[in-house]
């Protein structure tokens, strides 16, 4: 199984043991988010809505390129890809 790196935004890091980067085994963005939130129902709720769509306040970039809004994240991702999950930051 191929491995992907997920860059975790600070506000959801507590759900992944405080890690800013985690390695997951996945073929797609959706699988990567699923693997990342497998152990936390709360994190799953932050990432996906009740219909299983990726929440619109969660922005995802694969190797710096955006996953379009409204995508379910089913696009295949190449081995070793870096998936950046980006949430708004409020502070200033």
């Amino acid at each position, binding site marked *: 199984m191929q491995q992907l790196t997920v*860059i975790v*935004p*600070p*506000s*959801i890091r507590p759900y992944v043991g405080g890690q*800013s980067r985690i390695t997951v085994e996945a073929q797609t963005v959706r699988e990567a988010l699923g693997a990342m939130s497998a152990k936390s129902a709360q994190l799953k709720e*932050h990432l996906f809505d009740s219909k299983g769509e990726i*929440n*619109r*306040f969660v*922005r995802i*970039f694969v190797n*710096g*390129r*955006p996953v379009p*809004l409204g995508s379910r994240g089913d696009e295949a991702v190449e081995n070793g890809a870096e998936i*950046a999950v*980006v*949430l*708004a*930051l*409020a*502070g*200033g």
Partner: protein
Amino acid sequence: MLRQERLSRLRESLSRISVEEARRKQKAGVKLIDIRDAEETAKGSPVGAVRISRSFLELQIENVAPDADTELMVLCASDTRALFAADDLNRLGYSSVHWVDGGFQAWEAAGLPVEKHRQLSPAEKERYARHLSIPEVGAEGQALLLSKKVALVGAGGLGSPLAFYLAAAGIGTLGLIDSDRLERSNLQRQILHTDDRIGELKVSSAAKSLQAFNPDVALNLHEIRLNENNALEILADYDLVIDGSDNLATRYVVSDASTLLSIPMIYGAIFRFEGHVSAFWPNGPSGGPCYRCLFPEKLPASLTPSCSEVGVLGVLPGVIGTIMATEAIKILLGIGDPLIGRLLTYNALDCSFHDLEVPANPHCEQCQSNRDLPRMRAGL
């Protein structure tokens, strides 16, 4: 009348063009040199003309036209100085020089486009000397900065380096928008303020620091919290707005207002060791997204702790704020490759930057709607 004799000889022998022809040639890329003195060109000069005073012409023309074959057009107030200057350029070796008949007076009378250039005072030349030496800024760029009005939302962590560096750069007018008062816990990062001003309004503390730092910068103090009802009126006056606020609602308000006003917005935000920077100008020359294209839906409150709740490394707003100030100056000068359509993220702990591509959302109701004019929305 030796002068008259020489002039009529030059009139016969040199290549004469009308102001209309000069404008046509200029559009085709031929350089138009305005050889009048600085005091004259200060009141207006043909748009796009190169201004080299007659007394420096022989010394500086090679910077503009290194090649003696370069076609040149010379313009003065009417035509006397242009004739002598064209003659001199011929002698210097330039083979294709035209004098513009009627000069700037005829140019204006023909209704051709004119631009005004602010002249730098001796004190300004000294203060901004290091900018003047950079070709990308130079005297014209500095004059441009001195003519610009920039609104700064928030005079806190990000606002501190922003305000200092924008004032240092000679932005003509800085508008400071903040309704908070200074607290001791702000001083771990908000370098614009001082210990003896705790309890003061941040905008008045900021004004004291900036006045002392660069007294030439005009300051507009807006002791108010920006919202969807007041943003358009407050920001209407400015050329660019910088979002250094500390909450998401204000960020949406700044984005909507800047989109409606067609002014660029510089965005920055911070959290503990991490920061974001981007620039939004959906109806600017290169298009691109607005803040709502990036974050169409507001982050739930459970995921939105503020600096006061989660803390922030004191130097972090320094890093992010100075990148924001750089982007603002680049956009004002029209130089380089701005962060439009890109989100720069920074993690101080591993010192990593990510440059993420952010396209406009074709369905964005705020910046891409062609149905009817978008309106200001509540900051949600």
